[in-house]
Every structure is written in structure tokens, then in C-alpha cells.
């Protein structure tokens, strides 16, 4: 018997097709069930998944993360599937008292192709699909073929009927027969990953297509935020370190308002020191040769650039950079700190349609929302919470359930407090 910690075996197209058909039949048996049951089961499964010791043991090596990091991440992923939060999402998107009613019926099958950059992307994918009343098939990425399977097993333990509507699959990529089975029948295909992979898969999608390509994030610190510089530096360091900066919610730059209690350059030094300290608690995995080369290129390039200072230590690389233009860093645990006269100037510095999230410390988020929304930003949250997206996060500015149901609505930018 397969345990949650084992990488699933590669199957045939016929085998995958049969499992998808079975999930579709299981879904038809739930059409009259109120969503409250689905919400409760998903939340209970997430709680059990968080405690899965086999998963915690096996995930570090496949996801190339330190065990300490995985132990820190699992609760953060699970907390997004909080029952109250899911019920609130359902009510806000599907209408008052929607939780008490059966799920919508217009979408029968959602297919997700998950990226490899960060683990456990399967949980929100499965949860959102279940909340739309669809059967769901999730193809995991190379660096985490385990989480989806572990979650399905946790769900089967609390709600076998709902778990039967979930299909988890994994193959290393470049398997046309399996991709055809996965994508051709789905009413909605949600593709996450790099541009070449998205382009190759998108051509084969038979139903509606939702894509999530590469995006970046940043943090911003207002003058009032600098009054708690140590706390803010720690919060941003956490946002940088979690997931080793592999995700679209990882900050690659910090904009710090000048004229506060701490000069931006001093804040950069404090952030570098905080990253060093954090590396004791959340150790970096050994970087690859390419990652080490990128760090060298960043350090040496910055060393030769006027107006910059390189503050690198064992916890990462911070480049203080007086040039405010947004130039994301590439090595693990690295970012630029830019001084900025006023946070109101921030949106004008950002490239359009490339920034997903802004982590704020101080300043007035609501004053920034209109301009950031125009630039494609979907989420403003407190610094330190960038890696804890709620299920309500309108990824790509789309309503989470609406995007699957075919009515994503106007571009959204939420403010979390």
C-alpha cells in the first residue's frame, strides 16, 4: 500500500481517465449536500494533514527544504483552510447563506497543473475546487508529489464521499498522453508555472483556461513602521526566508520611506542582521551551483554600482540601492532595499502586471490600493504575513471561486489587516 510519503507511481492514460471518471460519478452523488459539510470536512482534513509526520519527514528531501522549514510551513498552509474563513469566502462569493445550500453545479471538473517552486499548492487548489462543487484532478509539481496525496488521504479519513471527488496525480512532465487526459475533459483548467510550460499546456486545454504565470512581490515600510524597526525587520526577514523565496509571494525588494526614525540604509543593515539571525532557526538548504553563482553576480555587480552597498552574511544578501527602480534579485534569501521619499510614489516605480503582493509596515494601505490595483497587484497584507495567504486571496486579481465558476469579476486587490 502506498503511504503518503511515497512518490506516487506513474500511471497510464487509461488509468488516469478511469480515476477521473470515478471522481465525476462521486461528485454527482454530492449535488444535494450543503456546503457546510464540505467546509467542515476540508478544515478537518487540513488539521490532520498538518500533523502528518510521514509527510513532514519525507517532504524536505523532495522539496529541497530544510526539515525546520517544512515544519514551519505545514501549519501555515493548513491554516488557510480554516472553517470560518472558508464559510466566509462562500458567503461573500456565492451569496448569503450559501454555505447552507448545495454547491453550485455549473462546473463538473476542474483540473489543476501545479508549479514546482513551492510545496503544498495542492491544498488551496483542492479546497477551492470542492467549494465550487466540482470534482478536481490535481497534477502535482516535481518538487512536491506528496502533499496532494497526503491531503486526499486525510480527507478520506474524515469524509470518504468528498475524497472520492478528488484525484491526485503526478508525473515528471512531458507526458502528452497523460496531459491530454488531464486537460481535455476538464471544464476548467488552472495552470500554474513558468511561461514555456504554460504555453505548451494551454494549447491542449479543452475547457476554460485560468493561468498563473511568474509573479513577484515586495515589501514597503512607512515612516511609522520604522518606529518598530526591529519587529518590522524580523517580519520581512520571515517573509523572505519562508519557502526560500521561491514563491510569487516572496518579497524581492523593500521600499523604505526616508525621514523616519531610522535611515533606510540603517534599516537595510538591520534587515541583513536579522536574516543572519533567522538562518539559525530556519537554516538555508545548501544552495546549488547556479544559486551560488547568482549570489556572486549580485554581490559583485552591486559592489561596482554607484549608490549601492552589499550587506551579505550567512543569512542571505541585502543590497542597499539608492536607485529606486524595481530590479528583483534572484539568489535565495536576497533582496534590495531602496529608499523612497514617500510610499505614495511606490506604484509609479513598479512594472505593470508583474507584482502580486505588497507587504506593508506602516503607511496607509487603503490610500495605495487604487494605484496598486491598476498595476496588477492583488494583495496588500501586513509585513510578516506575506507567506500566509488566506483562501480569499484573489490571485491574479480574480475572485477565487468566481475564477473557477467563470465569473471572476472586476480586478481585485484585497487589503488584509
Amino acid at each position, binding site marked *: 500500500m502506498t503511504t503518503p510519503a511515497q512518490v506516487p507511481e506513474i500511471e497510464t492514460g487509461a488509468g488516469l481517465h478511469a480515476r477521473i471518471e470515478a471522481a465525476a460519478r462521486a461528485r454527482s452523488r454530492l449535488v444535494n449536500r450543503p456546503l457546510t459539510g464540505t467546509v467542515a470536512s476540508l478544515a478537518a482534513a487540513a488539521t490532520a494533514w498538518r500533523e502528518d509526520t510521514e509527510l513532514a519527514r519525507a517532504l524536505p528531501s523532495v522539496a529541497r527544504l530544510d526539515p525546520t522549514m517544512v515544519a514551519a510551513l505545514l501549519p501555515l498552509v493548513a491554516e488557510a483552510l480554516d472553517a470560518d474563513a472558508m464559510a466566509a469566502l462562500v458567503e461573500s462569493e456565492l451569496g448569503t447563506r450559501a454555505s447552507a445550500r448545495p454547491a453550485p453545479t455549473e462546473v463538473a471538473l476542474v483540473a489543476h497543473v501545479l508549479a514546482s517552486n513551492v510545496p503544498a499548492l495542492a491544498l488551496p487548489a483542492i479546497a477551492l475546487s470542492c467549494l465550487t462543487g466540482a470534482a478536481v484532478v490535481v497534477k502535482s509539481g516535481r518538487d512536491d508529489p506528496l502533499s496532494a496525496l497526503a491531503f486526499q488521504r486525510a480527507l478520506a479519513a474524515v469524509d470518504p464521499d468528498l475524497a472520492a471527488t478528488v484525484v491526485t496525480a503526478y508525473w515528471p512532465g512531458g507526458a502528452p498522453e497523460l496531459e491530454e487526459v488531464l486537460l481535455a475533459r476538464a471544464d476548467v483548467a488552472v495552470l500554474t508555472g513558468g511561461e514555456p510550460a504554460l504555453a505548451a499546456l494551454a494549447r491542449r486545454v479543452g475547457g476554460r483556461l485560468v493561468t498563473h504565470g511568474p509573479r513577484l512581490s515586495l515589501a514597503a515600510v512607512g515612516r511609522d513602521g520604522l518606529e518598530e524597526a526591529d519587529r518590522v525587520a524580523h517580519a520581512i526577514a520571515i517573509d523572505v526566508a519562508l519557502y526560500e523565496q521561491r514563491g510569487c509571494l516572496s518579497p524581492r525588494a523593500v521600499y523604505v520611506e526616508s525621514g523616519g526614525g531610522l535611515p533606510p540604509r540603517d534599516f537595510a543593515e538591520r534587515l541583513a542582521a536579522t536574516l543572519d539571525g533567522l538562518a539559525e532557526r530556519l537554516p538555508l538548504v545548501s544552495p546549488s*551551483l*547556479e544559486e*551560488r*553563482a*547568482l*549570489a*556572486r*553576480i549580485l554581490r*559583485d*555587480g552591486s*559592489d*561596482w*554600482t*554607484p549608490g549601492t552597498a552589499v550587506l551579505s552574511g550567512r543569512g542571505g544578501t541585502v543590497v542597499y540601492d539608492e536607485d529606486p527602480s524595481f530590479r528583483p534579485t*534572484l539568489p535565495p534569501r536576497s533582496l534590495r532595499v531602496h529608499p523612497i521619499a514617500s510610499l505614495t510614489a511606490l506604484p509609479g516605480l513598479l512594472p505593470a502586471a508583474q507584482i502580486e503582493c505588497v507587504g506593508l509596515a506602516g503607511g496607509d494601505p487603503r490610500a495605495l490600493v487604487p494605484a496598486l490595483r491598476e498595476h496588477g497587484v492583488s494583495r496588500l497584507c501586513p509585513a510578516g504575513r506575506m507567506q500566509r495567504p488566506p483562501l480569499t486571496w484573489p490571485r491574479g486579481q480574480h475572485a477565487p471561486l468566481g475564477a473557477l465558476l467563470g465569473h471572476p469579476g472586476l480586478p481585485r486587490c484585497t487589503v488584509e489587516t
Partner: protein
Amino acid sequence: MTTALPLEAELTAAIEVTARGGPALDFEAWAVRIFAHQFERNAPYRTVCERRGVTPSVVARWEDVPPVPTAAFRQHELTCGPPEAIFRTSGTTAGPATRGAHLVPHLDLYRASALAAFREFVLPDGVRPSSLFLLPSPARRPESSLVRMCAWVGETLGSRHDWFLGEGGLETERLLQQLGERAERGETVLLAGPTAAFADLFDACRARRRTLRLGPGSRVMDTGGAKGLRRPLSRAGFLRECWTHLGVAGYSCVNEYGMTELCSQRYDSALVDRFRGRNLAPRRLLAPPWLRTRVVDPDTLELVPPGATGLLCHHDLANAGSVSVVLTEDLGRTVGDDGIEVMGRVAGALPRGCGLLLAEPGSG
């Protein structure tokens, strides 16, 4: 009494003597002397060296000379004197501000180095080919170091030459016509340019069902590798297509590895190995005696073990007029005791290189 020559002129003469089979250059002595020269005349370089506590008085070995990252060429005018030419790196997505500039104060030194190495590795049999360059002309791209080098090759080492990259990209019809005429006459042809331009030529041949058989001794020099390619093309695939579409055997196909920031280049060993009776030696990139390459660990900049992969750091004496030691964003490894293999650019580093000449035919 000897006349005191400027260092660059003296080095130019030494390179020419070495290239003619004269006494070998004393690389270390030149490296130390050139560092002192650059430290004195190149202010941005001196500033960084002083910050690191490296002065001519503490540099005793060629390996001690501080490297300069390619990124520095985007920020500073790294020259020891008024430039006779400014060469700029290619790049399409990041804009002109991110293009590096190599200011060359003594073009004769670049010319001597480039021609000597080309003659050694691409024309070791002394043939004077008819040269067709899949590149824009020097008038259209005066800031391309590759174009400048090819112009010298065409003028000095060839019988006649022409350029085939126009405003609209590769001038396929004219090129195929000229190649066809030369093939009919059995002329020895040198076909040179970015790998990406060759890929376009192969596609054109395939689309027209055109197969050429270039004259005896014809050869190909390509550069840039995968940069700018519109479709994947492995090295083995490239060599196969050279044979299929042009009738040029793999051992007559010489890959060049060069950089705007360097006045010397490395070349595929295949042709020179054949002429030296070393047919079984592995393909590798060879350098003239005045260019050395260290493969270094990105963290420490210390040498990695032989054959291990690391960052490439070139020490080019012919760069005497700017900075001699250039730390690249390329990964590679040593092959044997005289060659290297380039594995490619570090993923995520800014795109650059002559392969992108195709993507920006109208610039410059």
C-alpha cells in the same frame, strides 16, 4: 638604445611574434606589468582594488590580479586611455542602460590578438577563403566587436567578403544565391556568424529543399550558442545540419567563444586538432597563449578541481587597455590541460551576446 614603446604597442608586437612561432610570451610577467599599468590609468578599477587592499606591490602572480565582473562594464568606463572604439554588448529586453561597454584604446592590439587566434584555430592550413558573414556590416553595427573582428578577418585573411544580416534579418535569398554560385565554382568558403543565424539558414534550406555542397576546405565558424535561437538546436544537431545543408563536415565547424569585454577569443579545437593529428582528442575550446581561463568556485573565487563546473574567469592580456581579468556569468569546466567547455549562462542572468544580433538587426 631601445625606444620605449607604450605598453600596448609593445604587447601587440609580442603577440605578433608569438603568433608567428617566435618566443612564447611570459604570461605572468606581462600580467603583473599590465595590472600595474591598469592600476595607474584606470581610475574605477584602481578605486575598487584599493578598497580590497590590492595594489601592484602585492600582486606577484597572475592569479592575484583582481577580477572585474561583467556587470561593471555596464556601470563604468573601464579604460586606460581615450578609446579608439567602443564596443557594446547585445541585449534585447533590458534596454540600452543595461548594455555593457568595452572601451578599447588600442585597436591594433585587439586586431593583432583576434587575427592571430582566428588564423591559428579557424584557418590553420593557411587557406584564404571567400568569406560570407551572417552578420550586419560594420557600417550598420560599428559597436559590435564580433562584426569588427570579422571585418578584419575578411580584409586580411580572406579573398573577398560580404555581409548578409540586413534590416529585416537574414538575407536568405541573396545568401543562398551566393553560396550556390560559390559551390558551383568549388570555392573554399568561410561561413561565419551567430549560431542562431545558421539555424535560420538551415530552416530556409529545408523549406526550399535546398542542399548545398560547398567547395573543398570550406568551413563554418559559429558563435553565441543557444542565444537568440528560435528553436532548440543541440551542438550535435548543429553539426549534423552543417553537413546536411552545406556539405561541411563536423571537423570543419569551429565554435567561437568570445565576449564584447574581451579582445581575445577561444575556439573549438576540432579543426586545429585535425591538422595536428589529434583527431581523437575531445572537443574543447582552446585559447591563444595570451588568454587564460580559471574555473572558479562562486563563493570563494578559488579554482575548482579539474573538470568540475564553476564560473569562468578570463585573464586576457590583450585587454591591456581596459581590464584584463573578467569574471563572467558563464558556467564552464576545464577539459584536458588546455581547454574548457562552456556549459551556458547562469540561469536568470541578463540575456546578452552576439546571438541576439539577430533579434535587434536595426540597432546600433
